[in-house]
């Protein structure tokens, strides 16, 4: 059993600022008895990246599928305060979105979104969690060094507080998906620093099942970082071959989604 923490005076004294969040959904006809899915996007993305293919396909398989835009992203408010936004604001956004759903969702976070999900799990008893090409839950210095090697110019810009300028090969294995690059927005510089310099999240509440999924052609999150994340949750990563970091947009997006939905369907009913 993990230790609980009930006293959080600084969080109470300085609660996250309220925001209005965009929540895009695709719903099946009628109640299928399957848990809702809440997708959380990555750095500079928005809920739109899941609306492109995944939400509709998940709804067709009978899941209530939702995607939230974190504050300052997509159609959510908070763009004017993005430079002061921190990771804890995103965690707040994930939990707020989860609490509006009809029942406890499976939280599915991608990359930076996976880090927000990992932290949200310590505050909210999710049904389960899926971490896609995740930023590791421990400190991310190793990841930062790796990124400095594969994308030195991008990293340099992040260091001076500008949004990481992704290039197509960073996110996509297929060149067809590169059109989505134009939809990327700005990112909070503080959050970009926190990717490397964050504390390890507290253990999840209620010990939910966790699935860690990696992309075989991921230029940003290398296999050993993926393995470290999986180890933190006592599991092994599932790697989807021939797909880039943005598994929901790249050619072959059906394969990771099928892996996720099969896993969720195989979860035991809560007693």
């Amino acid at each position, binding site marked *: 059993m993990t230790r609980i923490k009930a006293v959080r005076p600084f969080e109470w004294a300085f609660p996250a600022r309220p925001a209005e969040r965009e929540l895009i959904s695709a719903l099946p006809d009628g109640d299928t008895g399957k848990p809702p899915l809440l997708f959380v996007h990555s750095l500079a993305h928005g809920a739109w990246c899941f609306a492109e293919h995944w939400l509709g396909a998940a709804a067709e398989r009978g899941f209530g599928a939702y995607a939230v835009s974190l504050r300052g992203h997509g159609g959510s408010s908070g763009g004017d305060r993005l430079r002061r936004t921190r990771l804890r604001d995103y965690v707040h956004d994930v939990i707020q979105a989860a609490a509006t759903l009809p029942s406890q969702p499976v939280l599915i976070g991608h990359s930076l979104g996976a880090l927000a999900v990992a932290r949200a799990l310590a505050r909210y008893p999710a049904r389960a969690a899926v971490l896609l090409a995740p930023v590791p839950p421990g400190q991310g210095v190793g990841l930062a060094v790796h990124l400095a090697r594969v994308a030195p110019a991008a990293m340099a810009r992040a260091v001076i507080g500008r949004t990481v300028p992704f290039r197509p090969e960073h996110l996509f294995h297929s060149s067809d998906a590169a059109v989505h690059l134009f939809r990327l927005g700005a990112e909070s510089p503080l959050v970009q620093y926190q990717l490397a310099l964050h504390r390890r999240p507290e253990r999840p509440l209620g010990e939910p099942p966790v699935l860690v999924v990696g992309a075989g052609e991921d230029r940003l999150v290398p296999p050993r970082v993926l393995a470290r994340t999986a180890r933190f949750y006592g599991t092994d990563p599932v790697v989807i071959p021939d797909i880039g970091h943005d598994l929901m947009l790249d050619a072959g997006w059906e394969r990771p989604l099928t892996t996720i939905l099969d896993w969720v369907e195989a979860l035991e009913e809560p*007693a």
Partner: protein
Amino acid sequence: MTAPEDVSSPVCVIGAGSSGLAAVKNLREHGFAVECFEREEEVGGNWNFGATNSRVYASTHTISSKPFTQYPDFPMPDHYPDYPHHSQLLEYFKRYADHFGLRRHIRFATRVERVEPAQGGVWDVTVRGRDGAARTRRYAAVLVANGHNWYPKMPHYPGLDSFTGEVLHSAQYKGPEVLRGRTVLVVGAGNTGCDLAVEAATNAEQVWHSTRRGYWYAPKFVFGRPSDQVADFWLGVRAPLRLRQWLFKTTLRATVGDLTRYGLPRPDHEPFETHPIVNSQLVYHVGHGDITPRPDLAQIDGAEVHFKDGSVARPDLIILATGYLPKFSFLDHEHLNWTDGRPRLYQHIFTPKHESLFVAGLIQPDSGQFTLAHWQTVAIAAYLRARTEAPRRAHDFRGLVRTESDRVFSGGARYTDSTRHHFEVAHQDYLRSLERTINALNGGRR
């Protein structure tokens, strides 16, 4: 009555208000079967406005701000204000019940009539449902969450019976209609008494507000932020009580100023020694002459009310905002270690008399209630689980329950002795204790 049917494993939860709902959810999460009984048709208890035992009035808002008030694992929505209205709280409880699928474990419109211990540490609970028939079932444990802010505490003033006007307890107060065009005396300076005095100030012809002593009236906002959030920063840095008292007084002096200049009595105690009163408007209306402060009542003589300072008022209506007493009509007092007119329970939860009887929500925190009720019910669930999975730890904990049932969680302050402080807890002190309990019972590791 038929012989009790044997349903030995489930836990019985009495009441589906703020504490009962948390109990159902947390016991379920710890793997227990639960059957909850609620006398009304809806969840929410006190916050179910209009229900028999609801004591909220049309204008009730929370006294503590959102971060202190919400369940820690189900935050209130961002679009709620800092201090939500009672209708928003009811909405919140309904969503909590739906989100965590609690309703299927709750039997609505069912009253608990009797709770009796049976051989082997189990309990026979007799309930009367919609059909009017009494039914008795056996439960492995009973968790009482029937609330303690609904049974009016009536004061005994000489001559109260002879009063020619109308007397109401705040329990009967639902909205300002009864105040319009009348002269009103509000008795009591709890948060309800202050709310009612303020409401009377804008609705009644004339208002007197009688209080036993001077109090510290904290504003709801200081420095543009909810005042409890400002105060908790100092708790977070572990500022000692004396320093916090000094900061409190300095902030109050700088924002509200000297209360005696408004004609209010000087507080006869230090801040944090009585239950906090958070009301920005009371002092404002006193300063506008809409409320006349008066000391304690001496006696009532027909139409005249005499105060201890010799002054006299002739109100049409007296509202007694004199508080509430806990009441457990279905359970003999001995089971709850009842002494000197109140139950004495370890952490206000665990009775030394029984291993499988618990009370949740029987606290008067200096902060929000539901956060604390959440951790109380987690502690109960952790204890029940330890009883089967780690009997040694459960046994050690029982030792504490037997010897420490008088412990006070005041954060170092000395509470003024009155019935309203029997269940008073300082939230940080109390939560630290619950945290230790839960982690010890779980054998927690990092």
